[in-house]
């Protein structure tokens, strides 16, 4: 068995599992946020149980639309607040951070443990060795009631990494590059296991970035394994990290990836650095390094969105917030920001955005014609300074 199969077997209390096998797994954490929890709460109440499977293992987070941009958004949060009190579960609120970052900071699942969150970027936890499976509100409600998740064991594709990233290449560039290789549906219902000596120099924050966008490739489970090559997989793709240059996803799909150099020079109007993909301290550092004693281009809205209060506190301590503000950029409250078009930086038809977020479908940030390019924080910061898409140095 490969590592994913070993973990799933353990979660299902089986000696062994094989691809396509139907299993039921024990869950370590169930979570939802302010876009997925309201429906989940409705569905949970319809089940008719009077408690969640384990209140210490159920977590709600308000991150997508905080502070509320509409009354409906506020109504949804009231639902969550009432539910949390009634059932004794944990609620993170008022700018504490993005769900996937808070799970890492406050409820870090052990290697091989199962995390079920009503959000497609649950795969982020593969970066710290946990099995993260994204579900919808109803499946989350069932998981809150039962503490179990049914699934079919996926076939696993291995990406075996060797070499080291160039100095201007980061985790985001790696996963964008993988997107250009695999496309958006080659990995549907499959597991993506990242192994090889090349993983040694990829720190956990960058691993989380890489796993975060596994869902964009359609992958069911995305996980960092070990430096050893796994033999029990469906296929293996060998990748030399040193051959990769900074990458960028062009409109209108995360897999429409080219080297940044191919689109360098395109004028832009907005930059967003943040999100569950790239909102960690190492990502904020790229903005601080680039903006120190400089100013962003006058035609560019530059929005910096840390993924948690802890990260923001660190930024304050290190003087990065002042650097960023003095450069003419805006530091927003920890949360999802404008990533998905509900608030804090919507765009119009005229806008061309470079964002460190994870999706660029038509209308993603509020206008169907606006162009969104997805890139690393280094690329985004460099572009904010010049006002054009720029290869970071």
């Amino acid at each position, binding site marked *: 068995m490969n590592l994913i199969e070993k973990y799933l077997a353990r979660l299902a209390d089986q000696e062994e599992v094989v691809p396509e096998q139907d299993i039921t797994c024990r869950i370590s954490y169930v979570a939802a946020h302010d876009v997925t929890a*309201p429906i989940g709460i409705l569905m949970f109440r319809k089940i*008719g149980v009077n408690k969640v499977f384990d209140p210490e293992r159920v977590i709600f987070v308000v991150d997508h639309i905080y502070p509320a941009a*509409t009354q409906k958004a506020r109504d949804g949060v009231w639902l969550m607040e009432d539910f949390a009190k009634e059932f004794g579960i944990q609620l993170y609120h008022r700018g504490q951070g993005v769900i996937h970052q808070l799970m890492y900071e406050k409820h870090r699942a052990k290697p091989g443990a199962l995390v079920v969150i009503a959000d497609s970027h649950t795969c982020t936890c593969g970066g710290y060795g946990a099995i993260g499976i994204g*579900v919808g509100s*109803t499946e989350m409600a069932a998981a809150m009631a039962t503490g179990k998740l049914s699934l079919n064991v996926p076939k696993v594709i291995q990406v075996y990494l060797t070499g080291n990233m160039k100095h201007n290449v980061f985790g985001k560039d790696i996963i964008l590059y993988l997107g250009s290789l695999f496309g958006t549906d080659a990995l549907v219902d499959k597991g993506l296991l990242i192994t090889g000596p090349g993983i040694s120099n990829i720190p956990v924050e960058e691993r989380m970035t890489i796993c975060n966008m596994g869902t964009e490739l359609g992958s*069911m489970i995305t996980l960092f394994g070990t430096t050893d090559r796994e033999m029990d997989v469906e296929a293996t793709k060998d990748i030399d990290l040193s051959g990769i240059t900074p990458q960028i996803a062009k409109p209108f799909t995360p897999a429409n990836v080219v080297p940044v150099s191919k689109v360098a020079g395109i004028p832009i109007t907005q930059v967003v650095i943040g999100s569950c993909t790239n909102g960690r301290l190492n990502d904020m550092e790229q903005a601080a390094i680039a903006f120190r004693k400089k100013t962003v281009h006058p035609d560019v809205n530059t929005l910096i969105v840390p993924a948690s209060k802890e990260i923001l506190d660190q930024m304050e301590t290190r003087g990065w917030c002042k650097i960023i503000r003095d450069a003419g950029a805006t530091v927003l409250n920890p949360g999802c920001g404008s990533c998905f078009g509900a608030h804090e930086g919507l765009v119009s038809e005229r806008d061309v955005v470079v964002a460190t977020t994870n999706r660029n*479908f038509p209308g993603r940030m509020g206008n169907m014609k606006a162009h969104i390019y997805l890139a690393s924080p280094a690329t985004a910061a460099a572009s904010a300074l010049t006002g054009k898409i720029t290869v970071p140095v």
Partner: protein
Amino acid sequence: MDKIKGKIIVLFDDVDTDQILPGYAMAEPLEKLGDFAMAGVPDMVFSEVASSGCILVAGRNFGCGSSREQAPIALKKAGVALVVAKGFSRIFRRNAINIGLPVFASDILEYVKTGDEIEVDLELGIIRIDDNLEIVSAPLSEDVRKTLDCGGLIERVRVELRIENAAQSLQVK
């Protein structure tokens, strides 16, 4: 499980969840979601083409993107009885089944156009395009049919948890 018969609306490849249910509509109350179905598709006014019991026919990777359950709910509320696509994104596929919206993997785009009527047998995996053409694909699994027969995952969980009080209809209408 009954056969599903209905008028088709033809879509395309990679219909993502931002197109099915845009970000700005995600906090809308459930009853209103149908009004926003497919609102993210340029030049499409879905309410003008959709009818009660219609069948969506699409290409690869239908439902890719976010886990928002509002997407299949919006389609169901707008009258969609079934989605037939060459391929589905995993989370969308599971969400649709869990809320009682059947989905079926079959590649029939080249044989049909919007307005045609087809009949789909989900148990046998047979799509009757017309008197001369039937397309056979892998039928829905027993597990999926069980959930759909219950009316969705919540109903199924209630049954499996052996909860006695089933007085109220639990289907997301």
